[in-house]
C-alpha cells in the first residue's frame, strides 16, 4: 500500500543521506522524496512516498523516528490531507497540434510557461493522478521531457504540524 509520510528533520549536514541511506540500507521502497526548509529555524520537512505492508510501514516509521536528526514523523495514510505535485512538461507543438495543446492546458487549468515555434512547456500543479491524466492526453503529441517534483502533503483542518 502507498503511504505518504512527512518527516521533520534537523536541517544539518548529511541529513538527506541519513534518510535515503536508511531506505536503501534496509531495502525499503522510496517512490519520491521532497525536501525544503520550513518556517521554523533549523528544521526541514521531507515528504516521501513509499510502499509496503503494515509490518514494513511500522518499521519505516520506527526507523525514521530512531534517527537522531528526526524530530517528528507523520504518516498521512488514513488522514484527511491535501496532496499536490508540480510538473513541468515539454511537449511538441507544431502547426495543427498547437491549438489542441492549449485546449488541454485550459481544461486542466495548467499554464504554458515557455513557448517556442515547435514546443510548449506546460506547468501543472495537482494531485499526482491529475498530472498523470494530463500526461495521458499530451502523449499523442509527443512529450520531449517531464520533470515532476514528487508530491507534498499537508493535513486538512486548522491544526498545523510543527517541530
Amino acid at each position, binding site marked *: 500500500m502507498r503511504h505518504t509520510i512527512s518527516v521533520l528533520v534537523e536541517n544539518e549536514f*548529511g541529513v538527506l543521506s541519513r534518510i535515503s541511506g536508511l531506505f536503501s540500507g534496509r531495502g525499503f521502497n522510496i517512490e519520491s522524496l521532497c525536501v525544503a526548509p520550513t518556517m521554523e529555524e533549523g528544521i526541514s520537512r521531507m515528504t516521501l512516498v513509499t510502499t509496503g505492508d503494515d509490518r514494513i510501514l511500522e*518499521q519505516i516509521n520506527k*526507523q525514521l523516528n*530512531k*534517527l*537522531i536528526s528526526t524530530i517528528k514523523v507523520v504518516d498521512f495514510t488514513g488522514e484527511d490531507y491535501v496532496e499536490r505535485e508540480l510538473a513541468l512538461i515539454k511537449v511538441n507543438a507544431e502547426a495543427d497540434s498547437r491549438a489542441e495543446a492549449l485546449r488541454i492546458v485550459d481544461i486542466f487549468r495548467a499554464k504554458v510557461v515557455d513557448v517556442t515555434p515547435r514546443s510548449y512547456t506546460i506547468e501543472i500543479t495537482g494531485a499526482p493522478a491529475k498530472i498523470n491524466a494530463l500526461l495521458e492526453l499530451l502523449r499523442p503529441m509527443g512529450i520531449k521531457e517531464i520533470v515532476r517534483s514528487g508530491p507534498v502533503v499537508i493535513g486538512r483542518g486548522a491544526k498545523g504540524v510543527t*517541530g
Partner: protein
Amino acid sequence: MELTGSQILLACLQEEGVDTVFGYPGGAVINIYDDLFDSPIEHILTRHEQAAVHAADGYARSTGKVGVAIATSGPGATNTVTGIATAYMDSIPMVVITGQVPTPLIGNDAFQEADMCGITRPCTKHNFLVQDIRDLAQTVKEAFYIARTGRPGPVLIDLPKDIQVHKYKFKYPEKVKLRGYKPTYAGNSRQIDKAVKMVLQARRPVLYVGGGINLSAANEQLIKLAELTQTPVTTTLMAMSGFPQNHPLALGMLGMHGTFYANMSVTECDLLIAVGARFDDRVTGRIDSFANKAKVIHIDIDPTSIKKNVAVDLPIVGDLQDVLGKLHAKLTEQTDAVQQLIENTADWRASIAEWRQSHPMGYKSSDTVIKPQFVIEKIRELTADDAIITTEVGQHQMWTAQFFQFRQPRTFLTSGGLGTMGFGLPAALGAQVAFPERQVIDISGDGSFQMNSQELATLVQYRLPVKIAILNNNFLGMVRQWQQMFFEKRYSQTCMELPIDFVKLAEAYGATGLQAARVEDVEKTIQTALDTPGPVLMEFKVAREENVLPMVPAGKAINEMVLAS
C-alpha cells in the same frame, strides 16, 4: 580562556570522566597528540586502529562506560570501520574521534581524505563532522550523551585539522540540544499490568534474554523475577554472562548452537518473555516455527527491535531495570496468584528437567587428544568467578558460550552481531586496562588470533597480563565444520597449512609462550600461565575435526537439531 580545538576536545573528554583512550597517531590528529603529551588522560597505543576501537569496545563492555578511540584521517579512519560496526551491532557505547583534512580541502580528494561520515553512517548510532570550532564542545557533549543513553552505540566525531588549531573560549555545555532524541526509560504501566496478567496465566513460560540485560545492568532484577515466578531463563550469546549459568533456572544458550533443552523449551513454551533481545536469525532459525505456540511479550528500549522479525502480543518499550523491576514489584503484591503460577508451571519445569537429562550439554572426552571443550572447562575451573573472558569468532567462541558457565555480569566479551574475527585480543587488552587486577583471558582460534596478533606488542609495552588460549586446530574450524556437514567435506581454503610456532611468536614480542600438546599438559599449562606475570600465550593442540553441537542447520527450525552422538 581561549583554547585550541584539540585542547577543547581533551577538556571535554575530561569533563566526561574519560581517563583512558585508545588510539594511533597521524598527520590529521597530530595536534591532538601534541596536547595528549602533557594531558592526564592516559593514551594506549595499539598497533592497528581496528584494535584501538576493539580495545575501547572491550573497555566499554567490561565497565559499562563509554569507550574512546582516536585515529587519523584516511587510512587510520577507515581502519576503524570494522571496530565501529562490531560495536554498533552489539550496541556498545563508544565515541570514536577521527582526524579529517582541513575544512577547505574537504571534498577535494585531498591527501588522506575519506568521507568518514558517509562511510560510517550505517554503522554508527550517529556521527558528526565538526565544521566550526564554536560547535566542538557541544558536539562532544552530544556524542557522549547519544553513545550512552537509550540503546547505546558508537558515535563518530570527524574533526578537521584546521578546527583542531582554531581558538575559542571553552565552556562545557550543561545541556544537550537534541529535540528529536528522547529515549523511553519508564515502561508503560498499563502494558506492565497486562504483562503481569499474561505471566500469571502462563503454563509454560520462558524468559528469553539478550545483550540488553548487561547494557541495562538489570541482572539483579532478572534474577529476582525468574526466581519469584520460577521461570526458566535462556540466554543469547550476548547474554551468557547476564544470568548465572550455574543457576538451576538457567537453560544456557538458545539458537543455532543452543542446548537441546533451551531450544525445546522455546519451541514448546506458551509464553515467551523476550528481554533486551532482538530475535536474530542465529537465535530463531526458521522464523515461522520459532516459539509458534507462544504468546510473546517483548521488552526493549529500542522500539525498532519490537515486531521487526516476529509478531509480538505485548510490546513494552523501556529500560529493563525499570520494566523488570516493576514487573517483579507488581507480582510480589500477588502472593497467592504467584503461588498458583508456580504450581501451574511445575509440570513444565519437570518436562524441561527431562529434556536436560535426556540430552545434557556434553562432548566425548578423550585421553589421547586434547578436546577444545576440555580446555575451556579447565580454564573455568582454574580462574576466578570474576575473570573476564573474551573470544574471537568461530568454534572456540561457541564452545566458550556452551561450556564456560559464566557467573557474573560483563565477564564474557564477544562479538555477537557482526561476528568479527580479531575482536578478542584487543578487547581483552581494553578490559585489562579497565581492570588491571582481574584475570583477563582471550580464548582464541588459530585463524582469528592472526587477525590482530600484533597486539601482543601492546600487551607487552603496557605490561597488561592478558592470557591468550589458542585452541589450535590448524583449521578455520567453524567454516570447516560447515564444509564437512553441508559441502561433502570439500575443505576449500579452510586448512591453515602453515604450522606457526606460536610460542616463538609470543617470545618475539617479549611475551611468554607455552604449548600443550598432550591432555595431561592442559591443566599445568593453564596454571603456569595464570601464575606467570605479564602476557602469556598458550597454544593448545586440539582435536582437529571436532564439531560444535548441537547445531541447527541454516533454514531449519530450532528444534531440528543435529545432536552430539
